[in-house]
């Protein structure tokens, strides 16, 4: 892009080819369909268009940070819909909750993509030609070059010496050069255009790798309680997001058990008390049917890398183990219950549904306090996130759980509308409070509940994205290209024998404020001023 249209100051430095003037083509009378196509193409691939598209993309990205996005923050979207249903619908019509996959955002980056291709492809050919061509011809009128000097060198022998020295110096400075009878012409800094092309091509690479990688990727979530085993198939995930071309056959055959989850909280520093210092999920993984079990630790920032997937630790919490005998003395519920943490001291909320109990179905809304404490108001709270003095409290609701109608299908919610509260609140019975190992009778002859122990659980993310490494490689290449482009100067230097002296001139293909200084320096280090007849061999090495 950089060379297509030169800046005001740049044009002066490019005397041979005047900058293209598109306006002539725009107004020309009858250009026909092909003409139009060509015009549109040229507009699209012009630098100004790319620039405007870039700025447009910046502006178009803004709303995605103002409104919650379905991909990054689905809960936020749900809440937004609940808080402002009308506004939410309007915004949704303009895809403002899916900004980065919206039609208008896509339109911008697709145009940018086309512009990039249209810009890069032809220039690769041109650049290849330049790379293999000899240095550009000597300008007829050297004094019209942006940097120019002339000095007297009397004899032809001295003139030849001067050109010899200039040639040697140019070689030292790694110019590509052509020695001619009347002087030398040279050019260097091809890396600038190479870097420029590398940068732009790599950006295309990033885009493609993101797109293709995303299509074959998947990401799934699973909550695993200590002692549980996850098997990598679709049914065993709690939630799963496949890419466009995802194929379930590609799930690595593997299993993963959580043997232990532990946390370290800071106990020493007053300002820091209760802040988590470390989370460790001890797991045993087994890849393939005959794979040997392998134990590893997953930590935040340290995912477990398995062939074809990575397993991340994304959350954790308590899973109190509860056993419930129903009114008839049968075991109606037995196992760990995943509780959701509500605050930084891990006050947690959980729901237990007991559909198979007789004589009646019932449900329990429970709070778990790892280190129970009483507020001034008398309400319970947790004073520390570790399980120092655990307490489980329960509100019990009797009646139809509504599981058949799908009403209560969310495991973390108990829809109590059609139910009757029998413990806690205004039911007349106190809420049940249990420490580990304790049990209590349920009211209304519902049975008995035992708080048998506490387990921890880990929320895991299992993801796969084959594009990742390519994205990284292209991003690094783009940066390398950017550095090459921005720190190289494409310069031409000519030294020419004229009547009674020599002329030296330089030209840069872009803005180059140091050109004069460079030429001055060149003249000095090549020692071509005041050359006398005797050739100075030393200077040419």
């Amino acid at each position, binding site marked *: 892009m950089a060379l297509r249209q030169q800046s005001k100051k740049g044009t002066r430095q490019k005397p041979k080819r005047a900058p293209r003037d598109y306006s002539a083509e725009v107004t020309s009378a009858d250009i026909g369909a092909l003409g139009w196509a060509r015009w549109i193409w040229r507009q699209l691939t012009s630098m100004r268009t790319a620039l405007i598209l870039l700025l447009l993309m910046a502006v178009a990205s803004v709303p995605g940070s103002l409104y919650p996005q379905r991909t990054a923050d689905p809960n936020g979207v749900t809440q937004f819909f609940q808080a402002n249903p009308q506004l939410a619908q309007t915004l949704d019509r303009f895809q403002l909750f899916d900004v980065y996959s919206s039609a208008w955002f896509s339109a911008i980056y697709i145009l940018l993509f086309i512009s990039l291709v249209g810009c890069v492809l032809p220039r690769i050919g041109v650049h290849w030609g330049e790379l293999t061509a000899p240095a550009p011809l000597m300008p007829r009128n050297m004094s019209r070059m942006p940097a120019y000097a002339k000095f007297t060198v009397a004899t032809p022998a001295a003139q030849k010496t001067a050109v010899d020295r200039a040639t040697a110096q140019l070689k030292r400075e790694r110019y590509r050069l052509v020695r001619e009878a009347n002087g030398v012409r040279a050019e260097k800094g091809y890396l600038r255009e190479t870097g420029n092309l590398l940068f732009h091509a790599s950006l295309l690479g990033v885009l493609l790798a993101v797109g293709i990688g995303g299509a074959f990727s998947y990401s799934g979530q699973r909550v695993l309680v200590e002692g549980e085993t996850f098997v990598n198939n679709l049914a065993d995930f709690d939630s799963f997001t496949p890419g466009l071309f995802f194929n379930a056959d590609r799930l690595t055959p593997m299993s993963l058990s959580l043997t232990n989850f532990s946390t370290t909280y800071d106990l020493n520093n*007053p300002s820091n008390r209760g802040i988590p210092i470390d989370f460790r999920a001890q797991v045993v993984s087994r890849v393939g049917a005959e794979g040997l079990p392998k134990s590893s630790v997953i930590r935040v920032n340290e995912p477990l890398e398995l062939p074809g997937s990575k397993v991340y630790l994304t959350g954790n919490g308590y899973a109190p183990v509860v056993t419930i005998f129903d009114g008839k003395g049968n075991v109606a519920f037995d196992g760990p219950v995943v509780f959701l943490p509500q605050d930084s001291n891990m006050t947690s909320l959980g729901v237990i549904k007991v559909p198979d109990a007789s004589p009646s179905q019932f449900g329990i809304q429970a709070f778990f306090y790892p280190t129970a404490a009483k507020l001034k108001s008398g309400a319970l709270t947790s004073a520390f996130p570790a399980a120092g003095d655990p307490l489980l409290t329960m509100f019990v609701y009797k009646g139809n759980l509504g599981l058949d109608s799908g009403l209560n299908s969310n495991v973390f919610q108990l829809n109590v509308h059609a139910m009757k509260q029998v413990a806690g609140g205004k039911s007349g019975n106190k809420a049940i409070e249990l420490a580990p190992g304790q049990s209590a009778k349920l009211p209304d002859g519902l049975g008995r509940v035992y708080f048998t122990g506490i387990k921890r659980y880990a929320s895991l993310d299992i993801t796969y994205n084959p594009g990742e490494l390519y994205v990284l490689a292209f991003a690094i290449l783009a940066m390398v290209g950017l550095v090459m482009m921005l720190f190289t100067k494409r310069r031409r230097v000519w030294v020419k024998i004229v009547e009674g002296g020599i002329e030296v001139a330089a030209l840069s293909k872009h803005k180059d404020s140091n050109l004069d200084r460079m030429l001055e320096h060149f003249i000095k280090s090549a020692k071509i001023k005041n050359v006398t007849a005797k050739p100075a061999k030393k200077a040419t090495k």
Partner: protein
Amino acid sequence: MTSVVLNPELDAISRLIVLGAMTLYSIAFVMFSVSLARAANAGKDKTQIARAALFERIALIITVVSVVAHGAGVLTRGIAAARVPWANMYEFSVTGSFVVMSIYLLSLIFRPIKYLAAFVTGFVVLILGSATTLFYVEVRSLMPALQNYWLLIHVTVAILATAFFMIGAALAFIYLMREWEWFNKTKSPLVVSARKVLAIMPKSDKLERQSYQFNIIGLILWTFTLIAGAIWADKAWHRFWGWDTKEVWTFIIWCIYMGYGHATVTRGWDGKRAAWLSMIGFVAILFNFTIVNLYFKGLHVYSGL
């Protein structure tokens, strides 16, 4: 990591040192401004010019002393927290402004931009002022998501990029003033005196060039920040890119400065429009660091407030 030892007493000392540095910067800022005003009004008066230069020299010495103190403040905060001192907004501001000052002083060796000193010290006083009053938090240990060597790389480079963009934007600002027709014509006395100050600064093309050089280095560093952030996000947030609010704004800023880069070589866009983009880019950086950190929801919530 199994345990940490924080040192709140040392942190209190660190805070005092930072406040001290801020006071010194304020004095330097006033002296730089006075020096500019004097030089602007000196005309050909040799003693006036000499006096302005003396003021500038003293202010520069104060600044150097202040930067050393500032560095000590950063260091003691790091020791008090037993880790790198840039994991929340307070620390990012204090360390960041230290880097801005250092980059500026180092640039003075290579580029004659002493005339920016009043801008830079004034800006740093503003940052330190908000850091010590609005953003201050006690020393805390690193949450597990931040316990990674990428904290060192990612944030250091972000700070460096910000420093370069800041200087680039200051130069662009002076350039725009110089090119502003109304400003060059109006007879309002305030503007006339401001014009005098401007008259002792370099000509437009030099400003434009210097601004370009700082912005371009900033752009490369920013590109690196973005890539480093993505690499880290792949470990800490289980995907390399997810349009989190901070990611979005980093991307927006990248687009703006890419636009700037293109503008400088596009006829009709180089000069004033490019300078505007440089200013807009820097405003976006400040926005990203303040508003996005404090008011936007996202994963990248490390302000500590």
